[in-house]
């Protein structure tokens, strides 16, 4: 128990040494460590509550995703059956209850219709399930019901794209080290340190940026449009800036060109009135299409539609063949710039809503760090004095173990790139208090064994042995609580649990193994005949 072979001593000291070395970069300013090689980049990250910044939890409505999928399916079915050969006439198309259903006019064609629709569905998941169930009801109505696997699949891919789009948009803002993480099935956590005013960020993320160009249906009756009715093949869209007075306009359903065909978007000033606008460039295919439609519709207006709202409806004075276009419509420099960013990074496949937001100013963060450091130092000092008064030389050993423990915890956190939060600092302070518990257990046991008349060496040996078992047990239960906090906790609870768990693991090593090494060394050198404990 009290004899240590040389290799063991070396191992213990090496482990502690490495742990302490890993803590070093966290104490140095970033501009020094950034020049170091990759393996030395072991820093503890500061949580938003310490560094200041914004935390946003965004949620996508899965309903939107399934609705969009259904609409998309409807388009595919229409195209396949009406345009395909032989043509199959369908009617009574409905998208009620999340299912697409339609009637095949000629009952003899039902089977043929099902045959043609089946290939439109896709495999979903591993089990060979399709993303839609195709069934025939009442002998002439075909129902396409999305399967759970299909819904999960489409939500998942929409979220993947959304995460990427958000990353691009935030990168465009030029903030440092944003963290963008998917959470659960339909959420994304965005954390941007140092961001004081999240309004700009939220505006940017709140925009779906679905851009479409459609021809204006000038045949529509203005009175009917005002009531929200449009001719077949057209739809009525809100148009807040309509010079005609009514905030609505009828446009053709068919899309001329969409934002998917963009290669670039920049904020510019309109040459005619010097107002902010956004200039966009189409890719080759989009440019050609735009050129073709504008050539065929000279002197007619087209609508520029963003997220289902018409921004403006300019007249086509001449064919636009250069592959560029300009979007105008009541922009400020800021909003034009924002739209340009949103368009460049692509449209969000699903609208996102902020469901949780936490913003901490940098001043409060700095105050919290200072308060945390003062509290830690005072706590460590008070505990150290108390331990020394109670156990003398052994108290000093325990204190040394605590100091090393704190450094090793920081080192491990650095290695894991863990985040230190304000509750994490509380975890540190608490660890200072509980880490000495192991030593208290051992020392009290040694006192007890001495009182029972055991010799110096034997009492120490017994104290460490008996107490080790108790310490192990107590720490397992403590770790159960910590593990549950880590698994179920969010934000602050997690930050606290990380420090607590690492502290439990390292404190057993420093408070038991390390102090035993010191005590053993002292025993061998001093050969005491009486214990002052």
């Amino acid at each position: 128990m009290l004899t240590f072979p040389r290799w063991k001593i070396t191992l213990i000291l090496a482990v502690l040494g490495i742990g302490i070395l890993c803590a070093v970069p966290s104490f140095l300013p970033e501009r020094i460590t950034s020049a170091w090689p990759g393996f030395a980049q072991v820093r503890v990250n500061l949580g938003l509550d310490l560094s200041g910044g914004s935390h946003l939890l965004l949620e996508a409505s899965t309903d939107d995703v399934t609705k969009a999928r259904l609409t998309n399916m409807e388009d595919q079915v229409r195209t396949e059956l009406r345009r395909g050969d032989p043509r199959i006439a369908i009617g009574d198309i409905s998208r009620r209850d999340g299912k697409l259903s339609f009637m095949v006019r000629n009952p003899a064609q039902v089977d043929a219709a099902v045959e043609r629709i089946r290939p439109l569905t896709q495999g979903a998941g591993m089990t060979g399930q399709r993303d839609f169930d195709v069934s025939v009801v009442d002998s002439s109505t075909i129902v396409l019901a999305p399967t759970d696997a299909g819904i999960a699949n489409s939500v998942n891919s929409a979220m993947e794209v959304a995460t990427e789009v958000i990353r691009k948009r935030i990168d465009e803002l030029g903030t440092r080290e944003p963290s963008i993480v998917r959470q659960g099935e339909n959420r994304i956590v965005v954390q941007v340190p140092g961001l004081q005013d999240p309004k700009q960020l939220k505006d940017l993320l709140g925009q779906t940026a679905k851009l479409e160009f459609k021809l204006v249906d000038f045949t529509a009756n203005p009175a009917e449009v005002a009531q929200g009715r449009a001719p077949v093949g057209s739809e009525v869209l809100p148009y807040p800036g309509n010079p005609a007075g009514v905030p609505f306009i009828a446009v053709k359903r068919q899309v001329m060109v969409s934002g998917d065909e963009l290669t670039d978007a920049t904020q510019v000033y309109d040459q005619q009135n010097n107002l902010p606008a956004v200039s966009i460039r189409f890719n080759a295919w989009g440019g050609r299409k735009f050129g073709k439609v504008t050539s065929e519709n000279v002197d007619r207006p087209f609508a520029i539609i963003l997220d289902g709202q018409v921004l403006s409806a300019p007249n086509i004075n001449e064919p636009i063949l250069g592959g560029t276009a300009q979007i105008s419509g009541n922009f400020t420099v800021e909003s034009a710039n924002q739209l340009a960013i949103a368009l460049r990074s692509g449209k969000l496949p699903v609208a996102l809503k902020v469901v949780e937001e936490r913003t901490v100013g940098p001043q409060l963060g700095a105050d919290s760090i200072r308060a945390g450091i003062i509290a830690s130092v005072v706590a460590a000092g008070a505990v150290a004095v108390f331990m020394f008064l109670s156990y003398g030389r052994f108290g000093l050993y325990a204190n040394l173990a605590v100091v090393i423990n704190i450094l090793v915890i920081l080192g491990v956190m650095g290695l894991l790139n863990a985040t230190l939060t304000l509750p994490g600092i509380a975890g540190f302070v608490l660890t200072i208090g509980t880490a000495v518990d192991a030593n208290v257990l051992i020392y009290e046991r040694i006192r007890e064994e001495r009182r029972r008349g055991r010799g110096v060496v034997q009492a120490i040996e017994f104290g460490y042995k008996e107490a080790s078992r108790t310490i192990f047990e107590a720490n397992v239960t403590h770790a159960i609580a910590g593990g549950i906090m880590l698994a179920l906790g969010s934000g602050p609870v997690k930050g606290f649990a990380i420090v607590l768990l690492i502290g439990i693991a390292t404190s057993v090593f420093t408070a038991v193994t390390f102090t035993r090494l010191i005590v053993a060394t002292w025993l061998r050198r001093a050969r005491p005949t009486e214990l002052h404990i």
Partner: protein
Amino acid sequence: MKLLKLVPDNTNIGFVRVRHIAFAITAILTLLAVAAVGVRGLNMGVDFVGGLMVEAKFASAPPLDKVRSDIDAMNVGEVSLQQFGDPRTVSIRLPLPESSDDGATDALVRKVQAGVEAKYPGVTFSRYDAVSGKVSGELIRNGILAVLLAVVGIAIFSWFRYEWQFGVSTFVAIMHDVLMTLGFFAITRLEFDLNIVAAVLTIVGYSINDKMVIDDRIRENMRKYRKMDMKALIDLSVNETLPRTVMTSVTVMLALGALLAFGGHVLRGFSAAMMLGIIIGTYSSVYVSSSLLITLGLKPEAASDKKAGGIASKAERMGDGAQP
């Protein structure tokens, strides 16, 4: 140098003898705590009820009533104010705007901030939280689940590790600790938020740690003194571990005292909850969980049966393994 000893050597306090009184007092206090939670409710933070919290630091301590009526005049819904220890720092809590539009929250924050700033020059806004009802519902569910899982998980551990009586007595004692802490928050009206859930879980962890040490000693003595009367054995074990119980409580209290005094206002509720929890946890270790073992009918022979249990034997081997 004379070393400090908080607890004299070889104490022989009859903890078990007073167990009926202790149980009665404990039961009454626990019921009072539950009643306090039931009647007064907890002052839930925005984490758990949803809404908006803006923290404002005033140039000098503001009259709360006036601030409240000023904000009421802005017509932004029912406002609730709370001071954070430091009288200059006030948290302003508001319901989230009805509109589902993201911009509405920002507009509300701006309106309140501008309104307060106009009346109280020099005020700064250091942070704000906005939590929707949906998220707060999940947070509260996860919080309750975490505490329950921790208590049950630990009780099961000590059941496997020792006898079922240890599991039950631990479970009862820990539930007592949790309920008393909740009662404390109901009475003081301190804000109950996510940090406090972390505090409650830590209290659970600490309290269990404390009970484990005593339980372990009881088991050790059960093997050592097979013939000893259970009451005397438990008294002996509690007395033997008393110096450690007191020493550790004092060191943790010292650390938490530093946190309470210097850790800043954000952690004040957390530190207060922890300090109280340590006291409650220590009390329940000494007076509740160990004495309860007698009521539950723990017999000395039981210890020998379970000696070679799975985790137990592993732990013992680990202990032995440390011996070269």
